[in-house]
């Protein structure tokens, strides 16, 4: 039977450092995403330039943004897990 309250009660000492990392990674991605929008708006013809093995910049940049989101997600999770393990363990000691 499902009755448990979903309010989080877990104690986490790594909140601040995780938030800081999240903000840094967000701005890194934002700059790269904004670059795509900027080129599309101001120099749209550049998106048609061939950049890698006959593929144009629009394809490479668009695909790159999708792949980058996954890679940055993994990096974020790796460090967050480390922070959580380390900082919450320290308190337990």
């Amino acid at each position, binding site marked *: 039977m*499902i009755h448990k309250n979903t309010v989080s009660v877990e104690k986490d000492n790594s909140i601040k450092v995780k938030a800081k990392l999240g903000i840094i990674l967000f701005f890194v991605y934002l700059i790269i995403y904004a670059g795509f929008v900027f080129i599309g708006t101001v120099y749209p013809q550049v998106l048609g330039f061939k950049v890698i093995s006959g593929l144009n910049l629009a394809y490479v940049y668009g695909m790159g943004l999708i792949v980058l989101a996954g890679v940055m997600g993994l990096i974020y999770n790796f460090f967050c897990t480390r922070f959580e393990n380390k900082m919450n363990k320290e308190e337990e000691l």
Partner: protein
Amino acid sequence: MIYDVSIIAILIFIFFVVAVIGLSFYFGKKTTSASGYYAAGGQINWAVNGIAFAGDYLSAASFLGICGMIAFFGYDGYLYSVGYLAGWVVALFLVAEPLRRLGKYTFTDALDAKFDSRGIKLAASISTLVVSVFYLIPQMVGAGALVTPLLGLPHWVGVVMVGSVVIFIVATAGMTSTTYVQFIKGGLLIIFSVLLTVFVLVKGINTNPGEDYHKFISINASIENGKVTGISDASYKLLGQHNEKDQTFVKLEKEGINSWWKLNTTGAAPVLEEALSIVDTKDGKKLYNGAPKDARKFFQVGHTKKIVVDGKEVESTGPVGPFEFIRNIESSVIVRFAKKSFTFNDEKVTVFYQNPTSGTDLMKPGMYYKIDKGATFWSRLDFISLMLALFLGTSALPHILIRYYTVPSQRAARKSTIVAIFAIGFFYILTLYMGTGAMINGGLDVESSNMSAPLLAKTFGITLFSIISALAFATILGTVSGLIVAASGAVAHDLMDKYMKIQMTESQKVRNGRIAAVVVGIVAIILGILFQSQNVSFLVGLAFAIAASANLPAILMLLFWKKTTAKGISWAIGVGMLSSLLIILFSPTMYDIMGLPPDSAPIPLQNPGIISIPLGFITLVAVSLITKNKRVQESK
């Protein structure tokens, strides 16, 4: 277009719907508490939740809308894929864990956790309701578009069917059933999209998409003083011509059937090129290529005119890899179909004529969003507005946000978001191949840009078409379920329980949530019928813009700006929501829906995000600073 109904399609469709309802009924029995109904008791595994996120997110807009938009406009449709996925970065890095810490059942709970403000409760619940309803419209439109080819039923029947099934699902179950339905559906959607993409790549690019594909013909014409005076094929009779700016359309007759052709004078000699036409006759009939719809003279289109591989022109590429496919598309010429409507002898004529377009132009932005040739200030602003709304909208969608409360911990919330990014990102990469595949393999129904993915599947056989269509229908069922849970939560939990403080037992809360689900479902059915002709991805873009304008400033500033006040949040939600709704109301799209000339719309923007999102942030900062100062003065 008229579609042949297949028994296999009907059986597969029934199987999917029964499976979804059965699953809902099974889990529905276990839901007895508000926590169970709204948040699945917070006990869902992170990996399951991640795929369920994908199931929630990969709605009709993604599968039907994006594939359709790519099939009709090339890379511009793919911009939605890029923007939708980028939005998950905001969700992961900024929103997922803090929101999990703040919340209980709904987005309103999270916003109100620090303040316990009636203003926030009211504003956030209304905003949740508005965003959910706007997101429901395209799902319903997609449902209607699917049911027509699948079961041979009218559009409105599809909308009513989805509405009724989902109302039943949500009213009997809640978040647990929705989660497992989304998990299964999300997984199946990705598997079959991979299959469809593999079929496209193995087939490669051909000038003749298939044996069943219509063979377009051209007839030589003679012209005097801009008027077509004769044609080379004696079996046709010249009936008249219509000039529209620099284009000439010619009406011919053969064996009692009228047809429309487009005059092409760019070659060595003038020729008439076969076009598709829909004519509303004076006596109230609708003729498709000169005959009633039942005569099945209207057909699927989309083919390649010229294929160049390594500098040589070929008839077919044979099987290709994913990069080779894109390279070859870029060096090919693809025949798209442009639309032109006019009146001829008191009859309303819509012609869909062949419009050969270079792959180079199709594989970069500019076909739908005018940012290159023919760009204006407003068209560029529209492009920025769309990309901004997509980027910021995801993490402000209430039906996505409530999924952070279905997992047991912050870590699980984070991990499930990453699973979602991989699943959704992979699917979005596939949309480019499915959309382009439909474009070159006769997967276009010129009447509806939402049917390209199922029609592409149809070119590979009726079984795949049936599975893909049934899956798309299940996609809609799942997404609509999630949206209705979010909307019913806004009414029953946020408004009735928290804002109006109506005393209710746990079972009364669940019952009221279910009643709210029924009402929201009925509203969605009505709107789904009204918005029938719109591209579903475009409509979802609007929902994203409203969410990003109304909700995101409140979420982000609450999490990252200490001076945020309760009034600042309430005002930001109100101003963001109203401004985005007003801009949409006075946009060319709404004018078109209301039967007014789109060019006369006072606001030439299609997407409101560029104005309404900053307005939401500015309002929050300004009101917070004003109300903060007042509080300080009062305390002195």
